[in-house]
């Protein structure tokens, strides 16, 4: 082994280590900047008024995003009601019942669906719900968000179910339990933390979606007025206020952005704790 060759390899090793550390540092730095910047701008306006009052008219100081926060929660609930049964059943079918070919096909389709740009999903929901009903509505936004949720829920449910050892399935079947009862009574409980993790990840994903809401929820200052009426949502309001010329609204947009980040971050931390518990 030549001395020069050794030195070259040693330095190459050091350079590559340094480069990958720098890349990792950069990724964390970006996150820290986003968090820090929104925190610095938003925290001052994130007060009780912001959480409990409705948006005021232009020029009037004060007002908050109560209706939009409530709207986002309604949309999340609506999307979950629509998406969870379909997503969970699809995941169960892929992991437990479908033939390998069928499971492959469904998985492939789910992955494509997960990759569809959210604005396209919004246009699709506009075409199948808004147009026929002649109105922007909370329902159509729920449909759009549900379409985004389904593949995420289905894939994570499938993967968690597959992690349950086969010996559990066989032990259940050998007791004379039917397949579906075994899935509900034995396999699903074993996969529950993973399934819940997936559901929360999907919720975190849709909580911040803005594009599909433009064509569907439209936005409204009056809070929830029924499933068939437009509804406001946090990301929509942030978009509207941030691009408005009024400083008061811009400040509120910062506060809203901060709140949204807190929401998503909170869900992520919860997911982390859940999946840590699963591992231990």
């Amino acid at each position, binding site marked *: 082994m030549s001395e020069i060759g050794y030195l070259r390899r040693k330095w190459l090793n050091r350079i590559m280590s340094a480069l990958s550390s720098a890349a990792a540092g950069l990724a964390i730095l970006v996150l820290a900047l986003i968090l820090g910047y929104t925190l610095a701008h938003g925290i001052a306006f994130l007060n009780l008024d912001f959480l409990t009052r409705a948006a005021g008219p232009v020029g009037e100081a004060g007002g908050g995003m109560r209706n939009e926060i409530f709207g986002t929660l309604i949309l999340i609930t609506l999307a979950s009601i629509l998406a969870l049964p379909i997503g969970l059943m699809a995941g169960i079918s892929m992991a437990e019942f479908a033939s390998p070919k069928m499971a492959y096909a469904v998985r492939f389709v789910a992955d494509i669906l997960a990759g569809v740009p959210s604005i396209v999903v919004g246009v699709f929901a506009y075409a199948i719900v808004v147009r026929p009903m002649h109105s922007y509505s909370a329902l159509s936004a729920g449909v759009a968000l549900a379409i985004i949720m389904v593949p995420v829920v289905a894939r994570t449910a499938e993967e968690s179910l597959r992690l349950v050892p086969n010996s*559990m399935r066989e*032990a259940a*079947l*050998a*007791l*004379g*339990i039917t397949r579906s*009862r075994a899935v509900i009574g034995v396999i699903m409980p*074993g996969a529950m933390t993973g399934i819940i993790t997936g559901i929360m990840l999907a919720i975190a994903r849709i909580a911040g979606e803005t594009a599909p809401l433009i064509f569907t929820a439209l936005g409204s200052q009056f809070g929830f007025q029924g499933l068939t009426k437009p509804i406001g949502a946090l990301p929509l309001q942030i978009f509207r206020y941030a691009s408005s010329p009024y400083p008061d609204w811009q400040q509120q947009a910062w506060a809203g952005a901060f709140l949204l980040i807190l929401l998503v971050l909170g869900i992520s931390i919860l997911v982390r704790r859940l999946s840590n518990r699963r591992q231990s």
Partner: protein
Amino acid sequence: MEGKTSAIIQNMVSNDNEHRTEEGAAHLEGEKGILEVQNLSAWYGNTLAIKHIDMSIKSRAITAIIGPSGCGKSTLIRCLNRMHEVSHGGRVEGCVLLDGKDIYARDVDPVVIRRRIGMVFQKPAPFPTMSIFDNVAAGLRLTRLWSRRWELEDVVERGLRQAALWDEVKDKLNLSGSSLSGGQQQRLCIARALAVAPEIILLDEPCSALDPVATLKIEELMRNLVKEYTIIIVTHNMQQAARVSDMAAFMMMGEDRAGTLVEYGLTSQLFTNPKDKRTEDYITGRFG
């Protein structure tokens, strides 16, 4: 050589029990089997795993299936309660008659068969999300819409007593099944299988993951259970087969790598006076 061999085996066999008296043995030979395996072959995909197996399993006796690794012992026992078809690509030809009716007939639901023929696997597999109580009750709970609590309590206690586990766990029925030791977990699995009141119990190498003390406990348990149940055990441990079984079957892989039944008969005869040269070679430790 011959004399020495049989002396060793004789020793192995005669360690136990009075259950294998001459009359008892004659009784076993005469009786019609509760399970009749007829010309059974099984595949995994395109791979033939066992072929042309014929054997008649006697009621209320322990039948041991022995043989070297990969000879299809587990495949055979899994065919007896239709668990083989659960494996990927599992396929079966031939018949298995339970009380004279083919369990592979079109109109037979495997769920019903598995209810009558329970199974315990090699690795103890208590349901990790369930308590000890729920584990034993699982078979009943998950086959009915609902059950009365006192009824379940009865069944659980009876199952655990039969599996000789009651005294060890009666004060911690709410603890998770996976908190028990390996041997206790395996007895929990036996209790779970017994709780649904099967007629036949299949044990697929139930002791291979256990230490000698736990193994002995399970063997004692089997001798007790055989008064009420028919037991079929797969084991690669010949001493175990000699100690506990009434009937023994020796399987081996043929030249086409498919398992065949070489010899089947009374344990005392198979171990002391094997008819087939290959059986003798195996039990004297010349291969396998």
